[in-house]
């Protein structure tokens, strides 16, 4: 018995040493690397977004969301955010968490932007003349001027200056009945008579297609890099590389649009559009490009980098509804204050609980306090090694569970005192105390488990509230760990004591007037 207890004691010591070792320094075991405790967004600062995906008839959401996650991941990777979380929630939502990235507006742009790159040219009528918005606005137009191209027409402000240049004006499409219809960027009908008149002079853009009808879009890109070029290598632009299919189509289009003269003409323009806005409308001055091209515009270098990143990661296969369903941002300084306060709160709590336990239960209280320290290191070590993201709620859970962890000890010690007073020897009282308190300890932990599971569900649904899930997870772990530390560890320590001389001093066990 005593020998077995000794072995258990040694095992406990080893585990305790391991937890200290795991906590004090980065853990590297083969490919298993844990640098530090992983802290939640509310502690390191960062951005948390939840988006609803726009449902549309012709796209099955399930598969495209998965591809959208990859696209978003690629875009974020370019910013070097450590451990971003990009997940699907339910069937039609996307959650993005960016620890340490606190510019919420930039984050939203990064995630929301569709990044759909396409190339369009100006529509020509049957006689080969260019088509403008005013042609469609004039009376008695019932069909497209180019009757073979059935895709929607895009009107952008290609006459505008500065900020206004290239901005979206309207779509023109055929509805089911075959009637022409102007719509805004979200597909809602536009009153063509009044609001569009002022843009009468802008061109009607149709998709540029290869000989087989494939439109030239960003899907056919293989790479995009920001670069300095143009005007003596001082203007930022984006070099693009086409994949095999893209190279062929691009050259077919170039041959068709080729401008042999130096006179600028809309007849020979290939418009570059990103998310339905015109970036630039260069002339085609070569008949073949052999797979590469340049997108220039009036970019700053960061803008060129952003565009290249967007093009490289590809277009989002789904539309995200703006604004996000849920958005949250915590600044890094606020997070730091929370960490600081958490340590203080945890330290004060554990010291006071220990002081109370020792004052009230004397020697067993001291053992329980040692077990409580072990409880703290073991819980934190598990959090680090798992790893579990510690949010403020999670830390709250750990601190509160220190109060709950000693509950098992309180139950046991009270029982022990009773048994001792009833005339048992110390050793027998200890064993009986542990044995008879067990059902109450178990029952109360089961209720904790139930609460944790339900809280975890609540926190995961809808907005993924890190405080609630964090609390649920740490409380759950805490409850399991406490069953081990408060029962096994305390019992082992007390059994060690029964053999020593201390056991004869009954005041150490806060039992006065013991009969034995």
């Amino acid at each position, binding site marked *: 018995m005593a020998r077995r207890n000794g072995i258990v004691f040694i095992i406990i010591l080893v585990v305790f040493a391991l937890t200290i070792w795991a906590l004090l320094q980065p853990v590297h075991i083969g490919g298993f690397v844990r640098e530090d405790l992983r802290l939640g967004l509310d502690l390191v600062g960062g951005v948390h977004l*939840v988006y609803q995906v726009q449902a549309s008839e012709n796209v099955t959401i399930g598969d495209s969301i998965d591809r959208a996650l990859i696209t978003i991941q690629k875009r974020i990777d370019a910013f070097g955010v450590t451990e971003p979380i990009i997940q699907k929630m339910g069937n039609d939502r996307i959650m993005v968490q960016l620890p340490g990235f606190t510019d919420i507006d930039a984050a939203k742009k990064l995630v929301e932007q569709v990044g759909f790159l396409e190339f369009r040219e100006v529509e020509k009528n049957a006689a080969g003349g260019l088509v403008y918005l005013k042609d469609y606005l004039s009376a008695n137009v019932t069909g497209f001027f180019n009757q073979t191209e059935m895709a929607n027409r895009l009107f952008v402000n290609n006459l505008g200056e500065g900020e206004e240049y290239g901005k979206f004006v309207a779509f023109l499409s055929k509805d089911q009945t075959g009637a022409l219809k102007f719509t805004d960027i979200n597909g809602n009908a536009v009153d063509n008579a009044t609001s569009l008149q002022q843009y009468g002079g802008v061109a009607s853009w149709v998709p540029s297609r290869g000989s087989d009808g494939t439109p030239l879009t960003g899907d056919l890109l293989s790479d995009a890099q920001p670069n300095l070029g143009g005007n003596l290598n001082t203007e930022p632009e984006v070099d693009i590389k086409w994949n095999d299919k893209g190279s062929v189509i691009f050259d077919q289009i170039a041959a068709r649009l080729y401008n042999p003269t130096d006179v600028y003409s809309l007849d020979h323009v290939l418009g570059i559009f990103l998310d339905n806005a015109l970036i630039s409308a260069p002339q085609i001055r070569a008949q073949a490009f052999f797979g590469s091209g340049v997108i220039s515009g009036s970019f700053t270098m960061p803008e060129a980098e952003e565009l290249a990143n967007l093009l490289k990661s590809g277009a989002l296969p789904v539309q995200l509804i703006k604004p996000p369903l849920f958005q949250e*941002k915590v600044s890094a300084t606020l997070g730091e204050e*929370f960490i600081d306060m958490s340590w203080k709160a945890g330290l*004060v709590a554990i010291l006071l609980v220990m002081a*109370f336990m020792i004052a009230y239960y004397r020697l067993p209280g001291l053992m329980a306090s040692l077990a409580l320290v072990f409880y703290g290191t073991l819980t934190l070590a598990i959090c680090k090694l798992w790893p579990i993201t510690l949010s*403020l*709620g999670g830390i*709250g859970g750990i601190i509160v569970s220190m109060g709950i962890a000693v509950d098992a000890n*309180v139950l046991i010690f009270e029982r022990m005192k009773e048994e001792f007073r009833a005339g048992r020897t110390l050793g027998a009282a200890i064993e009986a105390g542990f044995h008879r308190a067990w059902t109450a300890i178990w029952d109360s932990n*089961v209720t904790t488990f139930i609460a944790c599971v339900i809280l975890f569900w609540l926190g995961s649904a809808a907005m993924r509230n890190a405080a609630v899930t964090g609390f649920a997870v740490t409380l759950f772990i805490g409850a399991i760990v406490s069953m081990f530390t408060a029962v096994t560890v305390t019992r082992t320590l007390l059994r060690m004591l029964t053999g020593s001389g201390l056991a004869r001093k009954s005041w150490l066990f806060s039992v006065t007037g013991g009969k034995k």
Partner: protein
Amino acid sequence: MLDIIGKRFWFFLISGVLIVIAVISLSTFGLKPSIEFSSGSLLTVRLETAVDFTEFQQAVADLGHPDAIIQKVGDADYLIRTEELGEDAKAQLEAGLTARFGTLSEAQFSSVSPMVAQETARNALIAVVIAMVGMLLYVTWAFRKMPNPFRWGSCFTIALFHDILVTVGLFSLFGRIFGWEMNLMFITGILGIVGVSLDNTIVVFDRMRENQRLGVSADFEVVANRSQIETLSRSFNTSLTILITLVALLLFIGGTIQNFVIVLLIGLIAGTFDSVFVAPGLLVVWDKNEWGRFLPWRKSSRAKA
């Protein structure tokens, strides 16, 4: 020996008063839902130096948010709660405040759409109901071998509702004074109370179960009283250790988990009182069929008997 059970009707009276206060407070003040349940935006700006509160309030109103609810936290942090704030509206508000009060930093910003708010509110309700039903089922099962398991289960339920009602009621009363809101951490606190309160009740009932099995006395009142006394120090001590951790949290952290700590604090006290003094009393009342004593007009006849 201390006679706790004999004073059971005094404890019922205290509970009754607390419940009446809770119900009145809930029906008059209600609970103010946070943006997590009612949608909207919460913006925390940090100024370099503190400014006059009413002046700040006026500035926010002038910038087009007359209905905004403003709270000052810490040294110079201001919480501004508005309807759902768009990107431009937020930028405008911040620019306006900067122009008036100098450099500010955006410490925290969160925004919840009506759709998510609705779902969250619904989920919270489901969570509380499932948690309560789940735990009660477990407890009834754990006490299944006792005579009248239904009776034990019912007293668990009554004790639990009592705790939740009193906690929520007092939270609404203090919330009115201090401007507390009901948020997700509040719900977490409520579920925490469900757990802690049941734990306390379990310990007392567990002892009653044991003492009855040991045949301590034929009189259930004696069994109950003895069990109460035997578990008294455990209940107080455990509550005290949890209380210590809660006070530490409240003193140092506050912030987003403040609601949770406050709910637990109130619930812990109410729950301890109720499982030590009220719940066993109810079992005794049931055992002796004393229900008549709750009706004042029958009190005299009972006294005669």
